Each structure stands twice: as C-alpha cells, then as structure tokens.
C-alpha cells in the first residue's frame, strides 16, 4: 500500500506546489459553494498536513477526473491519476464517496463479480440485427441494457445505441459477436478506487474476451474503450485485441460518404460535446466531427470544445449534488446558446447526466435541447 507521500512522489504532484494554473479551469473549483479548494490546495494539504487533510478535502471525491487540469498543466502532472491513487488509499481505510442513484449501479457491478452469474443481457437483439457466434469482431455494449432499466424513464437511449451500433456494423458487412457473459468493464470501480471489484471484473472479462479468438473489439462507450485499451494492460493484462471506439472504426473508412449517404439531414444543425475519456484521455477529437460533417449536418461548436471541453458533471457514479448540477446546467446553457437543434455526444453517460439535469423544473427552457448519441444519429441515415 502506498502512503500519501509516495502517491505525491509517484505522480510528481509536488510540482503543483509552485503552480496552480489549473485552479482557473477546474470545473469543481469554479462552482464550490462551501469553502474553497483546488487541485493545488489538495496536493499542498497532502504534503504539509498529510493524510487527514486530504481525506477531508471535498475535491477527493468530487473531482471529475476529467483531465481538464492536465490539459493545461505545464509540468505534465496527471492529477486524475493522483486522485485515483488517493481514493484507493481512502477506500483501503474504509472511506468511500457517496454512491449516486441509491448505490444501484455499484451493486450491479459488484454482483457481476460472481462467476456463477448467467446474465440475460441480450434481449435487445432483434431479428433485424445480424449477430455471429464466431467473428473477428466483438461488439461490447457494456452496461447499456442496465441503463435502459434504470434510466428508461428519462428517455436515455440505452440499448437504442447498442442496436444502432450493430446496425452500422452490419451495414459495413460485419457480423459481430455479442457476448452473453461479458461483465462491466470496471471503469467506475477503478475510478472510485475500489480495486477489489475492478480486478475481479477485469480478470473475468480478460478470460472471456481472450478466449473468443476475435481480433477487434468495438465499443460505443468511451469509458469502456479507454478502460479495455489502457487500464487493463496496466492493471491486469493485455486483452490481445485491438480496442476501438465506434467513431475510430468509422473514421478508418475513407468511403464514409458513399456508405452512409446523407439524406434529409441538410438542415440539421448540431453541436458536439466531447466526452472526457474519448477526447482528453484518448485524443479522439476529429473523428466524431468528421462523421457529423459527412452526415451533412452543420456543426456549431460551443465555446468550450475539443481539448477545452467541459465534463458532463458527474463521474463514476460518485458524489452527485448541487455542484454537479451547476456544471451540467452551465454546459447545457452553453449548448443552447449555439442555436443548434441538437446536442450530439458519443458517451451514454454524458447523455444520462444531461437528461437528468434537464429534469430540473426550475431551469425550465433555458437548458432544454434535444440530446442524441452520435451512433444513433449515424444509424438513422442508413
């Protein structure tokens, strides 16, 4: 187990003591109501006052791990990694963040660590979708079927995205495998610092996925993509598969225009929200924009876009409150101010968080904008 001093050392977070540039961009620092904290103050606390100061800091659990700070950091400090390490330490000491949605999401993730579990997660596959029992390509829907159950009431697309993805793959001549017994990728337990659950899930996925003999794995969730591609090799082992977010797969194809001819979309104006994991973590900014362009939609950028994009306000189903709502409503207002008809994103969680924020009756029309996933937007054009 690392101590706080070691965590500061290994992440080079001591460089923060002389700087504090990120305080101006941290979405949490901006909206703090009770007291004031910032990434620099958290590190300063860790260095000067040790563990207790860090464990009490509101930023420990409210940090969105959105990497906005690292984006402008002149010293290359990975503050999100520092937070992840610190949360691990806090969890080992019995502390944890506040679970959102009554802990139901954490519970289903933990339930999935049971090897005897035989899930019924493929009910969304209808006769129109072509699925193979053996294929070079796996489609990994992640928790989409579960989100349907919990967030269906706020019209989250959920398995609509999964259907759209398979429809797109079929259109490209690919019949993917969809596995009955995949588990949650473990992204959220990992970023909550719950390494025990993460490792169990990851090891099960590693075994299931590497036995399939497939060469590529496609996801529609940037968090699954990042976790399977980067976190697994660091923490549990390499899948031996090429992991791609669906926008990466589509961007490979130079004939996108011919494959997905744009029909009635000429008049549709959209704005695009970059999910943190897809953008700042994986560097995929241009591909989704090319896609939108190819579909014939007019893209109107928000002030904060690409590297400077703002997180959707909640991360790893932990600590959602007044602060997070502020981040979300501000972002929705920004999207609305572009005058675009639709807010397009490529992460189901961004959609969940924004739709949830839109339920707020007080903000009313100010934050109402139609939200859609890029995958379903493309599938509509087929």
């Amino acid at each position, binding site marked *: 187990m690392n101590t706080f001093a070691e965590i500061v050392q290994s992440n080079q977070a001591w460089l923060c003591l002389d700087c504090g540039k990120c305080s101006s961009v941290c979405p949490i620092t901006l909206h703090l109501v009770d007291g004031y904290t910032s990434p620099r103050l958290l590190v300063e606390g860790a260095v000067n006052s040790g563990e207790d100061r860090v464990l009490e800091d509101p930023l420990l659990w409210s940090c969105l791990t959105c990497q906005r700070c690292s984006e402008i950091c002149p010293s290359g400090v990975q503050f999100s990694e520092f937070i992840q390490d610190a949360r691990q330490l806090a969890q080992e000491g019995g502390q944890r963040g506040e*679970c959102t*949605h*009554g*802990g*139901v*999401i*954490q*519970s*289903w993730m*933990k*339930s*999935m660590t*049971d090897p*005897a*579990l*035989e*899930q*019924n*997660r493929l009910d969304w596959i209808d006769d129109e979708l072509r699925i193979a029992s053996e294929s070079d390509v796996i489609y990994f829907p992640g928790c989409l*079927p*579960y989100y349907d*159950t*919990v967030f269906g009431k706020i019209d989250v697309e959920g398995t609509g995205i999964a259907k759209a993805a398979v429809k797109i793959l079929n259109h490209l001549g690919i019949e993917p495998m969809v596995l009955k017994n995949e588990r949650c990728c473990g992204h959220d337990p990992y970023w909550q610092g719950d390494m025990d659950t993460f490792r169990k899930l990851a090891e099960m996925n590693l075994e299931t996925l590497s036995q399939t003999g497939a060469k590529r794995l496609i996801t529609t969730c940037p968090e699954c993509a990042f976790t399977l591609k980067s976190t697994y090799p660091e923490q549990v082992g390499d899948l031996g598969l090429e992991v791609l977010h669906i926008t990466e797969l589509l961007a490979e194809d130079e004939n996108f225009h011919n494959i997905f001819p744009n029909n009635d979309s000429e008049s549709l104006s959209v704005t695009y929200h970059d999910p943190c994991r897809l953008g700042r973590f994986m560097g995929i900014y241009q591909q989704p924009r090319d896609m939108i362009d190819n579909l014939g939609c007019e893209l109107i950028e928000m002030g904060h876009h690409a590297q400077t994009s703002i997180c959707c306000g909640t991360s790893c189903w932990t600590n959602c409150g007044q602060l997070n709502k502020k981040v979300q409503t501000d972002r929705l207002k920004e999207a609305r101010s572009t005058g675009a008809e639709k807010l397009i994103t490529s992460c189901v969680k961004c959609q969940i968080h924004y739709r949830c924020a839109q339920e707020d009756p007080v903000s009313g029309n100010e934050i109402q904008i139609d939200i859609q996933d890029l995958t379903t937007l493309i599938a509509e054009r087929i």
Partner: protein
Amino acid sequence: MNKTTAKEKIILFTCNWHAFSSLEAAGIKNLVYSPALVPIRISCLGRITPGIILKAFEGGAAGVCLVGCPEGECHYQNGNREAHEVFEESRNLLRLLGYNENLLQYHLNSAGDGESFQVNIDNLVKNIQENRKIR
C-alpha cells in the same frame, strides 16, 4: 430450531404502518412464520430503492419481500405506488443479472390482520424458496 444461515435469509422490508402492524399482530397471536425472514422496518415502503434491494442480493440474501399498506391507504398517500414502480424496476434488473425475478416479492397487508400476514408471507417465502436458482 436450526439457525438460519446467511444464504437462506429472506429480507422483509415493511413500512411503519399497516405492514408492520400486521407483522406485530401475527407475533401477538403467536402465529408462526418462516424463521428465514429478517424484518426491517422503514418509515414508508416508498423509501425503498432498487439500490437497497440489489444490495440485499449482493450480500447473499435468498430473497427480498416488500410489504406495504393496502392500495389507497398509504400513510403518505402514494408510497405504495412508488414502491410498486421500484419493485418492477428491480425485477427487471434482477432478470438482467440472471437472478430469478421471483426472488423479489411484493405484498400489501392491512393493519392488525395477523392471519392474512401469516398466510401471505408463507406463500411469498414458498415462492422464493422454490425459485432459488443461483443462491
């Protein structure tokens, strides 16, 4: 009587009003019900969430029973209706996770009616015990 092991426990959530009163009435009248039941009293069944229900299964419970006030008689007006929505949502989640959805049961019972509580709760317990597949 044999001690009930964790894996045989059935968590019984009752509201503070009709449901708990009927459980007490059963006790006062010495009406026997399954020792597997672990009653947990909450202020209103409407306070239950899918998170609490899944947590019970995650912790190894054999089943979960929700018992509340009869239709139209909720102490807080619509708690039992809300609980029914949660019940449906939780059953869907259980089905996705591969549990038998009948491991979660729902029943509304009138205050003071110990006999009805005994008969109905026995049926729910039987239903759960017959439908146990994984745990």
